[in-house]
């Protein structure tokens, strides 16, 4: 027991000093942090959103939505390929049902060439060499194109990757500081934004698909049929809620439109005549050329500007627009126009996202939690420290020294791993104070016991540490097991609790057993007491 080599003392002291040093930057948070010398470590603990204030938003995509869009695109490609084939292949009875596209080739001699034309539309998907679509011919002339599961998974995966990028661009455009955007699982994206004043605006922006289309209005369509939602051949019907003439629907030509994904810029502006808020867009070269062609060929006719399947406005083309920029009018507020420009600048979402979970904490509540948590921590710690000294005297003082070091070490280790401190984490911190002394209680009680049995001082201390260590070890392992399960299954703030708990257990065993043992050994060696006050 008395034999405690110098190298051990030095390495334990160095380790403790390092831990305390790592914890310091986190304690100098806020304003005082700028006085922190730059040559020292600067890693700090992150504050969870429940303490710093901010929003946690979980977005989820519906895979069926991806499948539907994909099937739609497939239908358009099939139509285009069949038209482009030489000789042209006539098809009919096209339907999209149950996630499957089917159509008939009118001339049965063309079945083979139709199959030939379709093959390039499919590609390999996944590692198994499976293709992304299956093509089948039933009853001689009916083609059935169905997505394979590998193809669909691949499509969902790609859509989610793109969606994550788009979300990141949108949030960056809003000028929010330090957002965290992570894909989670197959169909989810987590967005965490600290210190946000207005989560509604953020959610509005995230929820917008922002798919912009320009399509020619089918002005020959029968207005009654359009109102009832029956489109003429070759046209589609879209709702038009803000129409000046009061019609609720509008028919547009299926073909010949252009989509708004070929933009280089979008910004909010004002209409020069009416002074109403508008969105100014600039096409890239390809989009600009297409738009020029569309407007050149259709002067005098109206075209519809469609956003996410709803018509914003249907202005007349007064003259060809050749400069590659255009103005989108609609029933906008300035804010609305601004949001739409952000959404257009950052691109369309390939899939609609829904907010399935939101956790927002106001900055005031967060600050209040930190303040109250600190007060509770200080009072709790002080009371436990006092209690230990009253009960164990010198040994209580050693335990307290270890406990205090332990608190710094927890912060230090958390800082090294850039861990996040949450409100339940603060509770975990305070609980650690209560439970960390347990090791010392076990040891000290054992020493008392051994003294009562008549062992000499040094031997009693020695046996006390040795015998207590086994129970300390077993008890802490079970606590780590509980903590790990909490970490694996927990979410957000509760995870923060598990982190503090696990780190606290490891550091507390070190300080409560190793460090106090060193202190006691050094004291015993120095003074060689015959009596022990414990």
């Amino acid at each position, binding site marked *: 027991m008395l034999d405690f080599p110098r190298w051990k003392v030095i390495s334990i002291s160095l380790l403790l000093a390092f831990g305390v040093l790592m914890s310091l930057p986190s304690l100098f948070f806020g304003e005082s942090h700028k006085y922190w010398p730059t040559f020292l470590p600067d890693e700090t603990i992150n504050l969870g959103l*429940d303490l710093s204030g901010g929003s946690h938003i979980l977005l989820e995509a519906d895979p069926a939505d991806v499948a539907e869009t994909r099937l739609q695109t497939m239908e358009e490609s099939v139509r285009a390929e069949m038209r482009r084939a030489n000789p042209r292949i006539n098809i009919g009875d096209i339907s999209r049902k149950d996630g499957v596209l089917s159509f008939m080739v009118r001339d049965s001699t063309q079945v083979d060439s139709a199959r030939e034309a379709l093959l390039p539309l499919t590609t390999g998907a996944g590692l198994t060499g499976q293709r992304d679509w299956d093509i089948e011919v039933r009853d001689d002339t009916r083609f059935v194109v169905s997505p394979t599961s590998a193809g669909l998974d691949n499509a969902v995966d790609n859509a989610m990757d793109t969606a994550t990028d788009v979300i990141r661009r949108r949030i960056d455009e809003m000028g929010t500081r330090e957002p965290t955007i992570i894909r989670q699982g197959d169909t989810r994206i987590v967005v965490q934004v600290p210190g946000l004043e207005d*989560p*509604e605006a953020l*959610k509005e922006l995230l929820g917008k698909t922002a798919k912009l289309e320009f399509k020619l209005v089918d002005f020959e369509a029968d207005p009654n049929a359009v109102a009832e939602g029956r489109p003429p051949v070759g046209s589609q019907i879209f709702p038009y809620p803000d129409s000046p003439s009061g019609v609720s629907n509008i028919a547009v030509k299926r073909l010949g439109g252009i989509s708004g994904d070929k933009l280089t810029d979008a910004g909010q502006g004002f209409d020069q005549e009416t002074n109403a808020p508008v969105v100014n867009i600039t096409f890239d070269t390809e989009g600009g050329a297409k738009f020029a062609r569309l407007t050149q060929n259709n002067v005098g006719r109206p075209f519809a500007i469609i956003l996410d399947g709803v018509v914003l406005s249907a202005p007349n083309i007064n003259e060809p627009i050749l400069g590659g920029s255009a103005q989108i009018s609609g029933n906008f507020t300035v804010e609305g126009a601004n949001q739409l420009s952000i959404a257009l600048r950052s691109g369309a979402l390939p899939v609609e996202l829904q*907010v*399935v*979970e*939101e956790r*927002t904490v106001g900055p*005031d*509540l967060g600050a209040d939690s930190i303040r*109250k948590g600190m*007060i*509770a921590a200080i*009072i*709790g*710690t002080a009371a436990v420290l006092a*209690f230990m000294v*009253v009960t*164990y*005297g010198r040994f209580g003082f050693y335990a307290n020294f270890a406990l205090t070091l332990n608190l710094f070490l927890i912060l230090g280790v958390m800082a090294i791993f850039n861990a996040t401190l949450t*409100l*339940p984490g*603060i*509770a*975990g911190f*305070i*609980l650690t*104070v*209560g*439970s960390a002394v*347990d090791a010392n*209680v*076990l040891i000290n*009680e054992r020493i*008392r016991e051994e003294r*009562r049995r008549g*062992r000499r001082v040094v*031997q009693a201390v*020695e046996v006390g540490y*040795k015998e207590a260590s*086994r*129970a300390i070890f*077993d*008890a802490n392992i*079970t*606590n780590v*097991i*509980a*903590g790990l*399960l*909490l970490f694996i*299954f*927990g*979410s*957000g703030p*509760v995870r923060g*609790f598990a982190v503090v*708990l696990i780190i606290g257990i490891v550091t507390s065993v070190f300080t409560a057993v190793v460090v106090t043992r060193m202190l006691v050994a050094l004291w015993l060696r120095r003074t060689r007491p015959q009596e022990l*006050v414990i």
Partner: protein
Amino acid sequence: MKLLKLVPDNTNIAFLKWRNIAVAISILMIIGSMALVAQRGLNFGVDFVGGQMIRTTFTETTDAPITELREKVGALGYGEPTIQRFGEPNEVSIRMKLPEGADQEPELANTMADEITLMLKADYPDVRIDGVDSVSGKVSEELLSKGVWSLVGAMLAITLYIWIRFEWQFGAGALFALFHDVSLTFGFFALTQLEFNLNIVAALLTIIGYSLNDTIVVYDRIRENLKKYRKMDIIALLDLSVNETLARTVMTSLTMLIALIALMVWGPDVIFGFSAAMFLGVFIGTYSSVYMAAPILIWLKVGPDSFVPPATAGDRAEKIGGPEEIG
């Protein structure tokens, strides 16, 4: 200096004498807790049933207009709100269940939260939104199943560990003690109708950890004494072990309670339920180590040979017969 001794030296309380009564009471308490949970149910927070909860502070009013709020939120057509005060009288939480049709439209919970927030901001200029939680049905189901799995997983993993480190009887005893602790905590939440949310799952797991901590200290001493006093009657041996560790049990429970009282009185309101659950858990956990975990060892016939492989028990009895050499 005269030091504080909460438990006098050489205590000799016959704890195990009362084991039958204690276990009977405990079983009644477990049944009572289950009945309470079945009859009154748990006051699940939005984490586990979905819906939304908004926490607000009326910064310039001393009393939040609860009745008026109830009418106004009800008028939005999403159903009746549960409005509760928390902390100061001008701080209220507004909780809503998932609205109808939320199965098909997962975003409905969030839309509802947005509408209520907008209404509050428009009608009460001094209102401060301190927090919004909105959880869809799907996410809340996941959180619930994850919570259940973490509890079940922790209990089984810990039991397994104790089985490996000690003997199967000890594992069974620990599992039974944990079951007791968890049941009673559930009963407490059914009785008080305190909100049962994610934090409470964290509290339950901490209680499991703490209770086990206690159980292990007692078990460790039992194991030690079983090897030391091979002729002693098992009941006397258990009593001895509990008494020997009593000072430590009292001391550690007290430091835990001190920390928890600080947390309940001065700590953040948001985690009051968590602290209250832990506070109760310290008592239940300490009690169960003595009156659940220990008596089971008697019924499962733990004896001096439990730590010796059966086949070689006779051969080795000689070697480990005497008190263990220490030091």
